[in-house]
């Protein structure tokens, strides 16, 4: 019983703020506190009228998408290579790829800025993406390391024993097995990139991402528009999760049907 109450408390602690934000995004007035004064879509309307906000959102989505895909490919290759390393090389690669997670954002921001200046790269979307890849790489590596620790390399041998070459083995055995981890790492990377703020500030140049825009907005005045933006992002994130799990289910159903017709 006590355990149940505890679980309920933890869940409400996690979920309550979300619900309140969603609720107040539909608030009829600019007030951010109870009592609730009626429903309205005015803040959502305001969102779509704000051109600057729209730009910032597009920039953020584009950056997040490219970051997720790039990190995914790089992280997958790096971790599979890591799996095949032995002894010291393995430990060294592990340390190098995972350390950035422990470094302060300020430090990464400053050092990236210096490095970019050194190579005379002009700041913009590309540099933001580079920065986000640096930040999210350790996340992918940690997720993959945990998955690959349980990966039975015997499965790859079994595939080769059954006549498959390395490429076929990768497509039909390795990739499907690590796919769930890759997808969740990609979703995580997308989310990290979407709300990254500190490092982005150093390397964004004249670009404005959504978190930067919200921050500058907040400095002027706190408006319920922020609730509306947050709600949109929340719904988008949930949608991504639902879609990815739905795709997995339909694929399974399809392959069963394909066999019936064989």
């Amino acid at each position, binding site marked *: 019983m006590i355990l149940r109450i505890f679980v309920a408390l933890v869940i409400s602690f996690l979920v309550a703020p979300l619900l309140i934000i969603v609720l107040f995004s539909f608030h009829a007035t600019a007030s951010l506190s109870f009592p609730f004064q009626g429903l309205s879509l005015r803040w959502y309307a305001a969102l779509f009228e704000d051109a600057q906000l729209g730009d910032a959102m597009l920039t953020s989505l584009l950056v997040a998408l490219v970051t997720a895909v790039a990190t995914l490919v790089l992280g997958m290759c790096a971790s599979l290579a890591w799996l095949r390393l032995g002894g010291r090389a393995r430990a060294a690669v592990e340390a190098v790829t995972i350390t950035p997670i422990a470094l302060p954002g300020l430090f990464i921001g400053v050092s990236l800025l210096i490095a970019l200046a050194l190579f005379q790269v002009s700041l913009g979307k590309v540099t933001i993406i580079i920065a986000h890849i640096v930040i999210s790489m350790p996340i992918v590596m940690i997720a993959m390391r945990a998955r690959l620790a349980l990966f039975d390399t*015997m499965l790859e041998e079994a595939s080769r024993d*059954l*006549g498959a070459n390395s490429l076929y083995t990768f497509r039909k*055995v390795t990739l499907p097995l690590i796919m769930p981890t890759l997808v969740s790492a990609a979703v995580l990377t997308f989310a990290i990139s979407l709300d990254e703020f500190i490092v982005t500030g150093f390397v964004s140049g004249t670009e404005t991402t959504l978190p930067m825009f919200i921050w500058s907005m907040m400095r002027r005045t706190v408006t319920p528009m922020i609730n509306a933006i947050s709600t949109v992002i929340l719904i988008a994130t949930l949608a991504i999760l639902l879609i990815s799990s739905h795709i997995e289910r339909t694929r399974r159903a399809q392959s069963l049907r394909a066999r019936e017709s064989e």
Partner: protein
Amino acid sequence: MTTADSIISIANVGKKFGTYQALHGIDLEVRKGEIVTLLGPSGCGKTTLMRLIAGFEDVTSGNLRIGGKDMVGVPPEKRPINMVFQRYALFPHLDVYENVAYGLRVRRLPAAEIESKVRRMLDIVQLSQLSQRYINELSGGQCQRVALARALVNEPQVLLMDEPLAALDLKIRQTMLEEMKRIHAATGTTFIYVTHDQDEAMILSDRIVLLNKGEVVQIDEPHQMYAEPKSLFAAKFLGETNLFPVRMVAMADGSSGSVHATGAVFTGKQPQPLKEGDSALASIRPEALYFAASERHRQSFKARITDELFIGSRSFLTAQLTNGDRFRIQIQRGTACPPVSPEAQVDVFWSPEDVSIYPAALT
């Protein structure tokens, strides 16, 4: 041996990992359709030998031919061999049907052919009802059969099995062994079976290859190997045996024999050279000892029965010689035997035909 019906021919094969010599001087011919077991304790090189045959490792020296073709540099996917892995290595993201179909899909066979071959193989291993189950929904014995089906559906010239029953409990193991004999008869494939379990080896094999420390100790049919182990290692590894420390002496008739500290005399086979005065070990299996003399069972010593271990169809008696040496006697249930009594001395008889004398190990 004729090479006409030889499917695998291994000549003077050695394998080194760094400075560690895992195998040396292995010679082995495997005939078409036979079941050969690679038997030995862990670290004897049996798994290494099998991985060499499968192509997961390259030979360091010597020659390995399969179906008459030299296999040096031929990768596993190009060898006419399939393998049942120790922990099965079944694909967890595929169901039973797709696991079995994997090798056929790799070869891009027509869909109808894949269907009929997979169905037939699932029938043979009696898994047709479970074709849509995922691997984590199967029991150990079912996984084992999927692994067999996945390998055999490709109609390999040779099927390798790496301790396929190690993960199963005793009852299922018995059933699976019978199952494998049945499948072997149904397919006629050559089986090479790796195990450290002497019972499995004896039940299953046409021939046993006994390995120790990277070398072949003995190759024989199970009956022959059990009856006439050519070394102390073979005698101890295959089945149970009693070893009596003895000293080699010349017998009255001029032949060579040995004498125990109690004065008991052992004569018998001497597979390895021994000379007068050598210390040696006389080996007699527990079931070769009797309480009654006969024309065959004419050698004997006196012992006291100190304990009985009853295991149903048979009992193991612990006995003690007058100098304190202990040994075991196995008797069938229903056989007359003296009662357990620390005082009474009884005569124990054996036949010289059941005795082998080996040089005492130096260690």
